[in-house]
């Protein structure tokens, strides 16, 4: 719904305060950008090193992985579902893909990405099929998948560990490679975000995701193939998590079976902070990616200004509460404005 504002000379409107609705909703994404700016500004004032290229590059590079997973998660949440299995998928994919270097020395990096993608796709297909076709609540299905995939991970890894020494340096340098000063991975993820945003905006199947989350009954009545769309959303979420797993491997090099444990909650936090309604229907993948960027920036900022990292989780929690309070406040305001208006128009 990032449609441009209607041209001037619009016909006279029925609802005079309609702008209120649109402006407020669009302001949601803008709000994240503002908060982001404030965080950066404050951090820079306290510690000027923060706005040096190195730190910002680090943040972007760190954000990429989160943003990638958040895009998939956002698409799932838009349909009034949730994917709790993303952390496990990232962990499994990270191990399997990094392990490829040990079992197939000299394997091209692109093939390793394909393997990670494959792992993610497989997980997404299973989760999506159970949820969409079996009509089981996704909260339960993906919670089960969280444990199952983590269990598989533990069995596969055993007590083993992928060590950095088995991975080629070209792979381990991926997170720090840059083009024009911007990390390669960040650019690639930005492209993914852009494609996802374009898809959600410009294709029927993409709009269907919003419709399903907005009102499932109405969606059914409109003839939208709900099961198919929800299935697709889970497959995309799985696939993106799989790719993110490879990035995880490159970033952390040493991979154990506990890799990315608990990631799913950080991702959901990022998505919600980014303005995707937890009950579906509204929000954007750009917002979700910005949410990931904001949380990551706060993380780094605390680091740079010397606040102990033990605060970070509490602050994530506060951000979440701030975000949903904001959303709730907007809703209440709108409802009140609407009721007043109806009274005014009332006979």
């Amino acid at each position, binding site marked *: 719904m990032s449609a441009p504002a209607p041209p001037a000379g619009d016909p006279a409107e029925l609802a005079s305060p309609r702008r209120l609705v649109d402006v407020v909703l669009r302001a949601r994404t803008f709000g994240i950008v503002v908060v982001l700016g404030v965080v950066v500004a404050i951090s820079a004032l306290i510690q000027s090193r923060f706005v040096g290229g190195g730190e910002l590059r680090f943040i972007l590079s760190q954000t990429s992985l989160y943003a990638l997973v958040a895009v998939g998660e956002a698409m799932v949440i838009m349909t009034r579902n949730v994917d709790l299995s993303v952390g496990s998928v990232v962990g499994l994919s990270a191990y399997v893909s990094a392990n490829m270097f040990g079992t197939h020395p000299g394997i091209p990096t692109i093939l390793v990405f394909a393997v990670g993608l494959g792992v993610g796709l497989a997980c997404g297909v299973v989760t999506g099929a159970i949820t969409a076709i079996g009509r089981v609540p996704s909260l339960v299905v993906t919670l089960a998948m969280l444990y199952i995939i983590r269990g598989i991970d533990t069995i596969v890894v055993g007590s083993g560990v992928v060590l950095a020494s088995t991975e080629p340096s070209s792979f381990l340098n991926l997170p720090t490679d840059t083009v024009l000063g911007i990390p390669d991975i960040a650019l690639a993820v930005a492209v993914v975000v852009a494609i996802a945003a374009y898809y959600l905006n410009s294709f029927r199947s993409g709009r269907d995701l919003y419709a399903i989350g907005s*009102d499932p009954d109405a969606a059914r009545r409109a003839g939208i193939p709900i099961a198919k769309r929800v299935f697709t959303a889970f497959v995309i979420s799985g696939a993106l998590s799989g790719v993110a797993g490879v990035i995880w491997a490159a970033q952390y090099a040493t991979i154990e079976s506990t890799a990315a444990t608990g990631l799913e909650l950080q991702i959901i936090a990022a998505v919600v902070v980014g303005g995707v309604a937890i009950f579906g229907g509204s929000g954007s993948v750009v917002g979700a990616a910005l949410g990931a960027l904001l949380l990551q920036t706060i993380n780094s900022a605390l680091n740079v200004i010397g606040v102990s990292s033990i605060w970070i989780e509490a602050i994530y929690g506060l951000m979440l509460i701030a975000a949903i309070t904001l959303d709730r406040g907007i809703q209440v305001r709108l409802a009140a404005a609407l009721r007043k208006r109806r009274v005014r128009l009332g006979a």
Partner: protein
Amino acid sequence: MSEQEQPNDEGGEGSHRRDGEPEPAKAGAQASAAGSGAMSAAAGPTARPILSVRDASKAFGAVHALEGVSIDLYGSEVHAVVGENGAGKSTLVKILGGVHPPDSGTLLGSDGRPLFLNGTAAAREAGIAIIFQEPTLFPDLSVAENVFIARQPRRRGGRIDHRLMRRESRALFERLGVPLDPDRVARGLSIAEQQIVEIGKALSFDARVVVMDEPTAALSATEVARLFGVVGSLREHGVAVVFISHRLEEVFAICQRVTVLRDGRLVLTQPVSELTAGDLVRAMVGRDIAARAHEHHDPAGAVLRVQNLSRAGIFQDISFEVRAGEIVALSGLVGAGRSEVARAAFGIDEYDSGSVFVGERRLRKGVPIDAMRAGVAMVPEDRRQQGLVMDMSIQDNIALASLRALTRHGLLIGPAQRAFATDWAARLQVKYSRITNPATSLSGGNQQKVVLAKWLSREPSVIIVDEPTRGIDIATKAEVHRLLVELSRSGVAVLVISSELPEVLAVADRILVMREGRVVAELAQAEASEERIMAAATGQADVPVAIKDGSPA
């Protein structure tokens, strides 16, 4: 029940649409006859009906919702369907909309071929659009997308043509004479605007029949005027409009033909010009006045007092009292605000101003516990959702509101609970096989008795009963009426909300008629009649006078 109609050749209809736009759903069997010509046809009924309902019947369980009803719908004609609550109007709408297939009878298209509507999609393909009183839009999507959802116009590569979609929507709303901004989100649209969006959607489907189910019930006067304009432009475009309304002045204002339903049967179908409002009211009500369940008696002092209660947009300045030993009925049409007043008085909903007293005690607003402590009980309208815990046993349901009295040291006493429940089930003559069976095992009437037992066992001084006999059989109905009367005899103040006029007349000592959020009439039992209540409820203040001449006293 399979889809039997053959969609016409996609390009067959000479339509106003351009290439590359979404193909409108074809009007199925009747499109061939009602094709392009009718779209531009001048106003005035065409010779053949666009849609005919032949001898349709529909029963839900033992209740005959519709019996042998036949209606012809013509293009460029607005056909009113009127009747009391429960006369079968909604069932007719659902048959037309493909929600419920009729048990017997058929629908015929304009070419005389039968239509089998086995779902909303089939009805839409047959060119029938239903505009519900409260439409369900996608609140998060734009108005244009709500019109075109899943049928958005596309460019090459499958990309949605947002600009064309916007232009098309704007053109639709201009055709309807209502400039709605296609870009705004649907959230926050008034009900009137949501209806316009639905009508726009119907037009985009090239609907030939548009059914409006009480569209004006929730609209303000200006909004109603605008809707009438829209109905006018639908007529100009050759559409057959079915207009369901409780407001007789609206029938006379915009409809050409009217059908009256009563108890599921068709009473008359006639041109509006041949009828008066008095004729319509008589046709709607015209049954024997039900026998009264009790004789009048003198009630004691006021127990429940509601003073100047208002909630913006819902109800205004409501004042009444219910005395001990008295049954007061809140009557009026669905949507008049009766349940809302009761809910506010009991503390479920907030209110803006006014006060509620039980005896000398003022109830805090929005706190149902306060009302319960003051001795008020409320039996809600929807027993399955709000009155009972369906999966719990009959025994537990009856004891649920009296648990405090049945515990010792915070623990429930099983035998006491069972004795308590058995006693109350017997007093209300609940028919069950085992008291430990779940509430789902009971019939509707017995479920209602369980709900009553649950509240009566608290021995309230005031009881509010919302639609006490909805959906239960006649024998049990009479029992419930008897119960309410006995209750008031024993000194309880009873407030009944009912859409069924015979019920109101049978049990009430006093009747308050609500219309559009206000109490418009107060009738004592002796002066009340179905005609007078209906006249007040539909805003036909002059009707009682007109009836005096021709109707029995």
